[in-house]
């Protein structure tokens, strides 16, 4: 290693340390603000208090939004895992033409502008005569979660040795049973990662959902942005801290079962 090499590497370490601080900064700020006693976002908080957590409980409609978001995230992730697993097996194992195109197409919604997908879906569903907000949202959230599932499962199945399935079949298992008993436990980390990121993406989605909600069906992100416009006080930071806690739990579960390094490779 020459001196220039060492200089490069030292610089990389310094920038990486800065990046860690930069990335964590908004989360730390949010948590700090949520425990303030003051009605404005002063930093550092003059006094510690839980008053904004109590205020959060008094917000009207918050609980309904949380339940709606959880409901949509759970159901849409489950549907996407089913659809995605079947499609990913087809891409990994099939010999038919256009498999690469299928893979690209099924991941492509990740790079499409959310608002545009929302607008297009709104106009399409209206044309089809679907006016129910809950069903529209569910249809949209399957579309939101499916690419996340596909991205992780496609990568995992490309690395999976499918001759294990053939071996299980030689031993007398039917094909669906072989998939269930051999593939599923082997790819459990990939399923967990896929489900986790899909769930979080659904919980967080704003740009597609905003076009499909009505007065009674408002998802959590939409409700939070509405609070920010109408009555921005630190109770929003308290809600955000709750979401950070949820992410932290997901991260701990993920790192214990899958490992952080494998999680990000999906």
């Amino acid at each position, binding site marked *: 290693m020459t001196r*220039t*090499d060492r200089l*490069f*590497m030292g*610089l*990389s370490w310094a*920038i*990486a340390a800065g*990046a860690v601080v930069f*990335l964590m*900064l*908004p*989360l730390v700020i*949010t948590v700090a*603000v949520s425990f303030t006693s003051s009605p404005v*976002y002063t930093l550092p908080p003059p006094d510690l208090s839980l008053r904004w957590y109590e205020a959060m409980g008094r917000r009207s409609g918050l609980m309904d939004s949380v339940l709606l978001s959880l409901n949509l995230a759970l159901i849409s992730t489950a549907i996407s895992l089913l*659809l*995605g697993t079947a*499609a990913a*097996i*087809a*891409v990994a*194992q099939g*010999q*038919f033409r256009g498999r690469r195109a*299928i893979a690209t*197409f*099924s991941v*492509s919604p990740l*790079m*499409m*502008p*959310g*608002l*545009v997908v929302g*607008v*297009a*879906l709104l*106009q*399409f569903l209206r044309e089809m005569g679907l006016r129910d907000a809950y069903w529209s949202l569910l249809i*949209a959230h399957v*579309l939101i979660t499916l690419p996340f599932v*596909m991205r992780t499962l496609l990568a995992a199945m490309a690395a999976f040795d499918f001759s294990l399935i053939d071996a299980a079949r030689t031993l007398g298992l039917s094909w669906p049973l072989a998939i269930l008993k051999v593939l599923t436990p082997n790819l459990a980390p990939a399923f967990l990662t896929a489900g*986790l990121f899909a769930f*979080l993406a659904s*919980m*967080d989605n704003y*740009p597609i959902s905003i076009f499909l909600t009505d007065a009674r069906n408002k998802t959590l*992100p939409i409700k*939070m*942005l509405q609070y*920010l416009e109408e009555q921005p006080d630190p109770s929003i*930071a308290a809600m955000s801290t709750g*979401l950070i806690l949820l*992410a932290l739990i997901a*991260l701990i579960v993920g790192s214990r079962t899958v490992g952080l*390094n494998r*999680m*990000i*490779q999906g």
Partner: protein
Amino acid sequence: MRGALDRFALLATPGLAYLAIVYALPLMLLLAESLRDAEGVLSVRRYTEFFADSFNMTVFWRTLRVALMTTLLALVIAYPTAFALARARGWAQTAILVAMVLPLSVGVIVKAFAWSILFRSNGALNEFLQWIGLIERPIRLLFTETALVIGAANVFLPFMVLPIYAVVRQLDPALGAAAASLGATPWFRFFRVTLPLTLPGVVAGSAFVFSLAVSMYVIPSLIVGERQQTLSMLIARSFLFLRDEQLGSTISALLLVIAVAVVLGSSWLARRLGSRE
């Protein structure tokens, strides 16, 4: 064997049919609609009318400029970070990985909200800058393009680091040593060996961050508000407040064309880089 092959294609059908109906078809209808004038005749009138308005042009260029600056800022931070992450072991590795995954798992609204607090004129950032003596009195950060770029780069940074890290991790350390033993200077090694090998990761990350940044909505609406509109904000405004669906659809189609161009352009570039090796 033939029957078995068709069975696999069948497995992909439900998922693909779903995406075709609720994703591809609506987007194509949107595009087709934007290419028709009031009488339903094929024309680009809606686009020429959109670009004839100087306000729209300002918004169009601002959107592209912000997306480009965000991508560049993220790239400058992410490239060295990916190298450090590939070398890191133990707690340093854990710290960088947690800093990638945790913010990824926290929603955009939470992070954009935090930045709007930080950027306030009586906010923490201003106090810090005054404390280190960089500025004398509070400067206006909130509602500026700079603030938007910083906030957006913060939110999208992991999407730049991860693809670059995926490539850097597979670099053979022996390559650098081999080049060095042949007398290559560090600069030469970086520009002729390391950089070309990591370019596919850079292209993938940049394309992803650019396409996210060009269409972001939550971040600008919380950090710059109505004062500095972007294309996404024009879309939301024309649909949700102005009830001008025509305008909203035209801008949507425009943003869609930009996104598709980025996807196609980056995959073309990735293929070219791949075939060169």
